[in-house]
């Protein structure tokens, strides 16, 4: 045993040190105490140095005890520091107190500069207004959906290969892959139809704008979170001709009379026949340019006549009712109309961008 060091002495030392830490008042006293107890000249440090002269067994036992003692003292000091920080914060906050009910009326000048709506909101409002003028009700739906609303009720059963195109993000809630961030606004179709069946309020003429999510690497033309608008008509005698006419009427109303639309066959499990719709390239106005890959057309969205299986899933009689649906990107409309070079500018929130709209 080295001179001046044994287990009981160590225990007594630690007990004394801890009580001094507990009773120290003020930052200065605490700082001095920290130096005295844990600094290079502290008793503990001295004992540490003396360990070297002990036999291996003793060294191991005492070394462990010394480390424990050091940890206990450091923790106690740390707790006092945290306590002090809490007290200081509490003091600051009390000094800062303000009763918000007594604000003097008209004491704050409102600035003369007007703010700005976000470009996507502006675009969304404009699109909504076009569809309202065409007789549509604007409705909304949730962003978190069950697998049923996002896929299955839309004729996309589990294991359906078309699900692979959706790059779905799942939430860690309940059964694995049963809760999703909606990959399209189409679940609102299902919800609208269910509500109309429940309330016996068919026909249905709605558009549903909102945020959707795809697990895609963001780049100049893709965002993980983006906005779509979905249209749905369920009425008597609705055919593909009505869909084509609607797409074309909307295109001219929103983009201008010199922009037209064309439909190409495509595939969506919830519509049959299905189509992609292109509009005249808004950059070259159809003259063929780099942006439209020399085709004169830009792809805007998808559409189709509602598949009777979707009607069956929500309980609408396909013998009486028929309908069509369409959907496209709101951000993409803004992108085309304002020739935005990089879609990521939309989420960057740089005021130099925001102030332009």
């Amino acid at each position, binding site marked *: 045993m080295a001179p001046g060091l044994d287990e009981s002495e160590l225990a007594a030392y630690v007990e004394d040190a801890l009580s001094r830490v507990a009773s120290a008042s003020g930052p200065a006293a605490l700082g001095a105490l920290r130096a005295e107890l844990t600094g290079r000249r502290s008793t503990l440090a001295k004992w540490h140095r003396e360990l070297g002269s002990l036999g291996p067994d003793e060294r191991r036992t005492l070394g462990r005890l010394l480390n424990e003692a050091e940890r206990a003292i450091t923790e106690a000091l740390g707790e006092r520091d945290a306590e002090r920080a809490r007290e200081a914060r509490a003091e600051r906050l009390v000094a800062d107190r303000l009763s*918000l009910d007594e604000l003097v009326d008209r004491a704050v000048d409102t600035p003369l500069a007007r703010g700005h709506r976000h470009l996507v909101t502006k675009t969304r409002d404009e699109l909504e207004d076009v569809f309202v003028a065409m007789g549509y009700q604007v409705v909304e739906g949730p962003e978190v959906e069950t697998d049923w609303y996002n896929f299955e009720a839309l004729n996309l059963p589990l294991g359906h290969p078309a699900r692979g195109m959706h790059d779905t*993000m799942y939430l860690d809630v309940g059964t694995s892959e049963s*809760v999703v961030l909606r990959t399209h606004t189409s679940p609102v179709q299902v919800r609208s139809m269910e509500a109309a069946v429940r309330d016996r309020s068919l026909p249905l003429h709605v558009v549903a704008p909102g945020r959707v999510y795809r697990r895609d690497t963001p780049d100049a033309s893709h965002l993980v979170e983006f906005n779509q608008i979905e249209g749905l008509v369920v009425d008597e005698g609705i055919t593909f001709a009505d869909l084509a006419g609607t797409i074309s009427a909307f295109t001219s109303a929103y983009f201008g009379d010199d922009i037209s639309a064309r439909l190409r066959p495509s595939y969506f*499990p919830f519509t049959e026949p299905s189509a992609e719709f292109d509009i005249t390239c808004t950059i070259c106005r159809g003259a063929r340019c780099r942006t439209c890959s020399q085709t004169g057309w830009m792809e805007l969205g998808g559409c189709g006549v509602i598949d009777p299986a979707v009607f069956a899933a929500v309980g609408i009689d396909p013998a009486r009712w028929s309908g069509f649906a369409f959907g496209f990107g709101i951000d993409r409309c803004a992108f085309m109309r304002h020739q935005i070079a990089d879609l990521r500018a939309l989420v960057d929130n740089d005021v130099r961008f925001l102030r332009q709209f």
Partner: protein
Amino acid sequence: MRVALSWLASYVPLPESLDELVATLDDLGLVVEDIEHVGLGLDGVVVVQVERIDAIEGADRIRLVTVRDRGAPVEVVCGAWNFEVGSLVPFAPVGTVLRDGTAISRRTMRGVVSNGMLCSGRELGVGDDHEGLLVLDESAATPGQPIAEVLGVDRDVVLDIAIEGNRPDAWCVEGVARDLAARYDVAFHRTEPDPPAPIGEGAGSVPVAVEIVDPDLCGRFVATVLIDVDVAESPRWLARRLELAGMRPINNVVDASNYVMLELGQPTHAYDLDRLAGHAIRVRRAVTGEELELLDGSSIELAVDSGAIGDTGEDLAICDGDDVPIGLAGVMGGSSSEIGPATTSVVLEAAWFEPIGVARTAKRHRLRTEASVRFERGCDYANCDRASARFVELLAMSSPGLRVLGAPIDVRGELRRPASLRVDADAIEGVLGVRLGLDEVARLLSAIGFDVADRDGTLEVTAPSGRPDVRDAPFGVADVAEEVARLHGYAALPTRVPSWPAPGGLAPVVRVRRAVREALVGIGALEAWTAAIVPADDAQLLGDEDERVRLTNPVAADAPFLRSSLMPGLLGAVRRNAERRQGDLALFEIGVVFAHPSAAPTARVERGGAGGGELVKLPSEDERVSLLLARPLDDARTAVAAWRALATALRLSHTRLDPIAGTTPLGLHPTRCAAIVDASTGAVLGTLGEVDPDIAARAMPGLDDGRRLGWVDVSMGVLADHDAVLRESDVASVPSRYPTSDVDLAFVLDESVHVEELKAVLRDAAGELCESVECFDAYRGHGVPPGSRSLAMRVRLCALDRTLSEEALASTRVAMIDAATGSLSATLR
């Protein structure tokens, strides 16, 4: 899918113009995503032999190479080192234009003239190798020969066509040709293979037994046994077609299998018969825990449930005579029976596997293969024998000695009968809105393999077995109508703009949201859009990780949460602007925040689960309006002013700011915050005040000028709820024409008395004479006891029908003082 025009043209005559062809394909729903011109830039490039290699003085990376075709020697400077005297290499003489547009000219380097260029594989567009020159095999090339001839590269165009999920029939060269032939109304040359006749016909002559144990997952299994197979290279033309399609030639057996898949859409798989234990094949569900080493060398454990919704955990295995798995049906073969150079006997599998099962297996094992993507969409089971015969026919070209042992073994499981339905002109018109002649409908459908019979004005239509997407009646009418529309051309169909009597309109919440946005823009705020999927930092900032909704498969591993507040996003947006020296701004956002179902007081419950048969607890969604005021003079006061502006714009009549009882909401300054409450209904609209200074300091380390950040956060749902939040009456009041008089009163009250209470008492006491009550000063300190404050109030009085007399004013003043001192224990100061 990559399709070479030269290949496509062997089934159907193509139009002269590439533009026209591409437009037609697009119009058929076979979207051309890319057009690649191959074999360009080879004109003029010839084979030369290296005669001499000389060093160039002062240059250590380039050498002077003398080459010769059939004529005179030519000197070329070259930077490659992978050849020697006598090597045969490609040479682009002066004047050649390579495929990347580079025009070869005479150049002088280090004083030496270079009369052309010796080329690498990449420069010629025949490979990726750019390490050195493309050194040619002496047996296959002679000096002076055009390089295009040596490489077997003709000019061609490769179209990359996107095939939609409902068109498995089009996922092959023949399928694309079939659609084109239907559209152009021309003959389509279907592949009819003519393989060598089998030897030893009859039962028992085939030494392989096939058993389908699980007929629901394997509808058909055709096995063809070949002996005396010589594993060798494929014919050049065949290898070239594979290359153009984006596949690497391997050997004639594997290549023939791949070729058949590209041509007919039927994946096949070849097993080495000598490595097939027991010379038997059993197709059965895998047993959980069975292992299989795949062709790609990886080892997988079969039939292990992933736990995902609807995953049955089932795998279909191909097993050998010892019942040991040797392949994952429809996805990938195993390594144990792989075809190798020593293979002489082959069993060819051409099968039909149940699509959803293949899809699940491929997804669970993360093995999307050329075969699995085709089986997932549904192959044509009727194609199995044709594919087998075509394989044999192709393989016999490079292995002429092969013999087919007996007739193919054909075992059936459960197969879906192709859809069959009756369709008339009315039904088609009901979908497309146009009356088409039944003759035209019948012609179009027949051209793509539908069986059509006219029965007195009604067509009896049977879909081909390769069109599993076509359903029976009644749904199938839409499927048939789509095929008719597609082949007829969407652009040729009529259009009509529908109309209906009901007017359009905005949902109430949309109207309120627009009003909120207008009001905030009106006070100078900019609207931001921040991400709903947020990094871990965001949760750490607010310290609510445990209650957050977590993503299972986030795009970025460090951004796994859904936001629980708009505050961190807006703070981040202000910080980024501040870093660009433009941080003096007010930002707002209207967006959804999420809470874990276990954290929400009442969880959202919706229909979900497999088949929609369960009720599923979902994270709750709460749309918030949040405003962050970060201009130099902003603080809780401007937040209150901003809220008042918003409340006025929305005509909210009865809201007041109450101290927050209990825990301070996350992120708020504990002593500078208040709850926004509707005084009549008690509904809480949100909170306002300042951002907690410690959080502000952490979120915006650069912005340490001691500025305060004002904050307003209200629920859109409550704002839009007209029952929870009362609006000003629509009844307009006409102001009095008589003068108004102000009465100023200062009261000392206990801190606990709300200013709104005092206002209400004064308003009541003044009765109908009261036009407005306003607090114009608040004072604490000398003369006011601790725990109390002095509030200076201005009451504006006015009567509708007269000028108020001094007496009236005096009595109203007394009434107000009595009321305040009586009911609120106030003292007049």
